């Protein structure tokens, strides 16, 4: 399991924000360790851990009493999905204000947090955690093609945001 620490951390950061991610990361691995002896038929450990992290992120939002933040482009949210980052949630258009110049990582997380949840999840699970689209679809409850499309749309939106931010910063 130790080899998947980075992937799980990225998932946590994308789903609950950098501030809260540490706790969710630890809860994920403790939960994994608890059920590990009875999970003999897991085929893909990383997908299994990401699924636990996603549940823990959801629990985290529920415990904090946060509602999913409506997304800017009005895409319908699936009920029960993890909410947008809380502690450092950023609304569309305010990305640059939340980020100090030079903090590229924060810039990326902030840009990610503005994406519709499904796109954000697809980008993170595939591009940052390295899961195949079939596994991403399993987590999102959609088809492989839909997962691929969500990731592609997400990346396109992200590129536009990041180019915008870097111009604003310079």
């Amino acid at each position, binding site marked *: 399991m*130790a080899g998947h620490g980075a992937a799980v*951390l990225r998932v946590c950061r994308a789903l609950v924000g950098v501030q809260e991610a540490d706790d969710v*990361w630890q809860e994920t691995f*403790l939960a994994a*360790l608890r059920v590990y002896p009875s999970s003999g038929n897991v085929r893909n450990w990383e997908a299994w851990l990401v699924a636990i992290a996603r549940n823990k992120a959801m629990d985290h939002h529920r415990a904090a009493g946060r509602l999913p933040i409506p997304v800017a482009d009005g895409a319908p949210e699936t009920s029960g999905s993890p909410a947008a980052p809380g502690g450092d949630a950023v609304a569309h258009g305010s990305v640059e204000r939340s980020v100090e110049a030079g903090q590229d990582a924060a810039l990326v997380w902030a840009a990610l947090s503005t994406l519709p949840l499904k796109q954000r999840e697809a980008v993170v699970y595939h591009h*940052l955690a390295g899961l195949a689209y079939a596994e991403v679809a399993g987590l999102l409850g959609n088809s492989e093609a839909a997962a691929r499309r969500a990731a592609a749309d997400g*990346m396109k939106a992200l590129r536009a945001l*990041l180019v915008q931010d870097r111009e604003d910063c310079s």
Partner: protein
Amino acid sequence: METQAVVPVPAELAAVKEGEAGDLDRLGGRFRAAAAADGLLDIAYRVMDSPVGPLLLAGTERGLLRVAFDREGHDSVLESLAATISPRILLAPARLDAAARELGEYFALRRQAFDLPLDFRLATGFRREVLAHLPEIGYGHTASYAAVAALTSSPRAVRAVGTACARNPLPLVVPCHRVIRSDGSWGAYLGGADAKALLLDLEAGAA
């Protein structure tokens, strides 16, 4: 349990890797402490360098459980521990500090006997009985398989003594390297014949 998986990240998102290694070190340390506090850490392990090659040390709450030479295949030893004892295995060097320190002292000729809690659950029955007698062979001395058998409840079980030594889960600490053939030749060793020769030379030189 494996090394860090490498996930290729698109260039425009590569910034997320900033500081990640340090963050993971910090999180890993905190996690191991939390897992141990919750009783979730059944086996801790670490690898240490030694004159007989990298040694895998694994321990439970009860004590040192396994010492393995490189040629035994550390990954396969860990897999076997996962299957027979518990899959809750973590790289957690702190629990093995005492064992690593005493082994280091042994190789530096500053220690002749080990003073470590040992978990013998990987050796049962007659094998365990044999292991219990091995520390009676003093540092710098050797005994034949037949002589060790004579100490046990089955004095004629010479071959079984050989098997017990060959499967010793705690080599070095439980000195199976001091058991040699009746004709004076050194015989086989878990860590290889060269390792056995090195250990006996080391002890002969220091004793």
